[in-house]
């Protein structure tokens, strides 16, 4: 399935919804969305991944890019990740650098 990303930044929270298969061909689109959101200097980054069915290392590298672009003190929340994608995130140790939540927790995420 083709990849798509939609994003909005509200009250300093940059929220991205990722859908489909995030491979090396699609990573540029995700990176561009990150770059665009970084311009408004968000305090938090939220990635909604419930409908993301596949993620290759190119997607993980975009998370590194996001962290470096937004700043090390900007937390990245990964929400609703599917089991197979979770396995990749954990296998590569990325779960130590992002906050993984099953569902969007407004109380935690929006209390900046």
């Amino acid at each position, binding site marked *: 399935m083709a990849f798509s990303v939609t994003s909005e930044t509200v009250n300093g929270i940059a929220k991205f919804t990722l859908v489909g298969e995030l*491979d090396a*061909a699609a990573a540029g689109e995700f990176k561009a969305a990150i770059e665009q959101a970084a311009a408004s200097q968000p305090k938090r980054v939220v990635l909604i991944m419930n409908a993301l069915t596949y993620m290759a*290392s190119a997607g*993980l*590298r975009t998370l590194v890019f996001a962290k470096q672009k937004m700043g090390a003190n900007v937390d990245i929340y990964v929400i609703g990740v599917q089991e197979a994608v979770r396995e*990749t995130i954990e296998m590569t140790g990325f779960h130590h*650098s*992002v906050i993984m939540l099953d569902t969007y927790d407004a109380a935690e995420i929006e209390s900046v």
Partner: protein
Amino acid sequence: MKPITIPGTLASLSLLRDYARAAAAEAGLDKKRTYRLELAVDEIATNIVNHGYQEAGLTGDVVARATITAQALEIVLEDTAVPFDPRHLMRPEQIDLPLAERPIGGLGVFLAIENVDEFRYEYVDGHNRNIFVVNRTAA
């Protein structure tokens, strides 16, 4: 299974994943092992396209060939890019570094090797051959 030949471009990666998925179905692999195989094939093919072809200023194809035996499913990716053994890029020690400090590279190869039961590389008659083996019975 009948081999497929695809152009060595990022846009073709999804075709290789489709091929790996079809081969996995024929070999009776479960959902988890199927996903892992798709990921492994995709990661190595991404390296072939980016490093083997594009960065070297070359163009070429990638051929995928699946063979199913009683014990295992084997997929061979073959390309005519510069000789390159992906195992040289594997640096597992990086996975302990925080996100902001990570160097780029090696991650895809790490995932490829970790997600199949056996990974081999050969250079034969001007062709790189990356070989993935997944056991059909759970190890």
